């Protein structure tokens, strides 16, 4: 069963979304493998759940963070989408909205935050700085675009983007989530590649402590 090429997002018709070509390419790629009917039906249910429950990590480095607060506030009310449950612990968050400039000192921290998140995880680059470095591209201490550090799903340009563009970006992300495959892709049990070496290291530390 093929993936629905035109996932429905409430109150915005498919044609009104920008950048449908990229999206269609993505769907064609996913469709190329083909899927079992039952599996796809289950997938659709899970995708429905996931796309409507994207809990953002409270992560803001500068100006865009204030606009994110405005999105959470009464006028724009991100709660309508069910995204208001902002989690402070990356373990419990689903999407990281990189709002603000990422400097080279912050880059390893952001990478670590991303690594700490549980699958499935998504990244939205919010604002000019996160997209490309913005007005600070020539700086010695700014990463020119977070896609140098972590994979980005949706880019929201603007300096800072208006709250409406935040919401639009989140709806684009919903679209993307809605065509995902669940079975056989994410949530796999990966063997810990560092398990043995870490155990050895821990033993060494214990021995050293005992000797001291």
């Amino acid at each position, binding site marked *: 069963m093929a993936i629905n090429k035109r996932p429905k997002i409430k109150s915005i018709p498919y044609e009104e979304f920008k950048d449908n070509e990229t999206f269609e390419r993505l769907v064609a790629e996913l469709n190329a493998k083909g899927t079992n009917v039952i599996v796809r039906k289950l997938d659709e249910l899970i995708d429905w759940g996931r796309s409507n429950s994207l809990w953002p990590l*409270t*992560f*803001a*480095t*500068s*100006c865009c*963070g*204030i*606009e994110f*607060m*405005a999105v959470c*506030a*009464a*006028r724009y009310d991100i709660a309508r989408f069910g995204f208001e449950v902002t989690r*402070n612990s990356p373990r419990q968050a689903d999407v990281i909205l990189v709002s*603000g*400039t990422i*400097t*080279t*000192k*912050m*880059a*390893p*921290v952001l*990478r*670590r*935050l991303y690594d700490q998140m549980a699958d499935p995880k998504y990244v939205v680059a919010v604002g000019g700085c996160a997209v490309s470095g913005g*007005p*600070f591209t*020539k*700086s*010695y*201490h*700014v*990463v020119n675009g977070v896609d*140098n*550090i972590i994979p980005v799903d949706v880019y929201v340009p603007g*300096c*800072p983007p*208006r709250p409406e563009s935040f919401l639009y970006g989140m709806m684009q992300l919903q679209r993307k989530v809605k065509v995902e495959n669940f079975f056989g892709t994410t949530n796999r049990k990966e063997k810990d590649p560092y398990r043995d070496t870490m155990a050895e290291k821990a033993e060494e530390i214990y021995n050293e402590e005992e000797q001291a």
Partner: protein
Amino acid sequence: MNDMNMEKKGEAQAAAQPQAAQPKAAPAAAPAAARPAAAAPAQPAKNQIEPECVAPEALRERMETLKNKEGYDFLENLTGFDWEADGLGVVYQLASTADPSRRVNLKTLTTDRENPYLPSVADLWDIANIYEREVYDFFGIRFTGHPDMRRIFMREDWVGYPMRKDDETEKNNPLRMTPEPLSDFTETYTLQSDGTVTKSQRRLFEEDEYVVNIGPQHPSTHGVLHFRVSLEGEKIKKIDPVLGYIHRGVEKISEKMTYPQTLALTDRLDYLGAMQNRHALCMCIEQAMGVEVSDRVKVIRTIMDELQRIDSHILFFSCLCQDLGATTAFLYGFRDREQILDIFEETCGGRLILNYNTIGGVMADIHPNFQKRVKAFIPYMRKNIKEYHDIFTGNVIFQNRAKGVGVLTKEQCISFGCTGGTGRAAGWHNDVRKLRPYAAYDRVQFNEVVRSEGDSFARYMIRLDEILESLNIIEQLIDNIPEGNFQEKMKPIIKVPEGLYYSAVEGSRGEFGVLLESKGDKSPYRLHYRSTGLPLVAVMDTACRDNMIADLITIGGTVDYVVPDIDR
């Protein structure tokens, strides 16, 4: 424009305004009240400073006399410079809090570029500690006698000193994705009597201390700030701030930009004081060039600054409530903030980053609806301030958590240079609008809100009372916007005459200053911003000691720093 009041500026001063609050304090220092006359280009610009050069050997003695005998107790600014062939140096700007008209500027420099050493003044002014670390970080000048000579903004494994003119930063510093090294040791350089410098190491945190990292990604640090907090149970023993997670090198990139281009970056420093920051830089450049803006521009700028201040203080209120767990009050604050953003949006086109001031004026004239909407906003906001007091100020839990918590004395505030609401909560009259009136502040009547307790509650109340004062200022001006150009005619390429210039405005959270050195080119030779937030972060250790972790949130919330402004 038709509904605009046609009064001329002389009449605008007439006390036809509602005097809701009579000034308690005497009017500001007399000389500043005079109207600025258009400076002829031949005379030195109004804001030019000529620092007195002191040899490094004589610096300590001179500084001690200034601090202890002559009463220069406020180190306003300490800026590193790289004068290429002339050497590396520092400019000190001192002021006396007892008599704000007394100001003195000094500079010292060393020609040794390999191992530059200068004497430290960190024991005289507390804030010098963090300022000198900044200079060391950017210019590599080591201060002898400084207790804690570490980098503060850059990673500890950073190669070179980015603000030096000859530094090859990009080549030496590729993007490092390894976890950031954070040493537990700090260094002190001591100048021996025979002229040599010795280095000694000291532990910051003992091996068995329970150190918790608050930040860099933490909900209550208001951005990416990192505190290493040593705890004993819930009690805080020590705080070591690690900065630079949002250091974008604004001062360095400005050196390669033309003057109009540099303006764009000021809005992004303290994004809650976008108007005021840009105002400071525009004013600095205008005064240096001897350009006099029209009265209309001055009044518009004043109104915009005050709207921005209200915006910032509402955000302060919201975030403090959020940090203390009262989420509902947070949303109420944002509801009112949207009204200001609407007004901004109509005239400036932006909500947060406004890009409104330009050199010689403002970007566009005010929107026809501007006056109507501002006038509607004033009573609306007055009513809602009452609601804030009902919902949050009177709450017994909040009062218990804020009263007597994080007390800063007046002396501490001055020594740490904590201007703005934090200093005023401790009784320090430091409002630049009163001390050195700029724009249209000399023609309005307002109170400088000052309290004496110096605790978190006082800092909170100061902000809410300042909203009312700002409303008063706007109310006096909004009907009296004089006619005139909104933009002076400027040359296509703006060049500032050679010299060192300093201008300051009262930002949302303290004195925001711009120190500009020009060599007569179309871009600045050195542009330094006096950050309003850096002193506030520096004071956190003093304010939080022996308080609990929960108090760190209260204190951090009430001193009200904005991280991109600290890191620049």
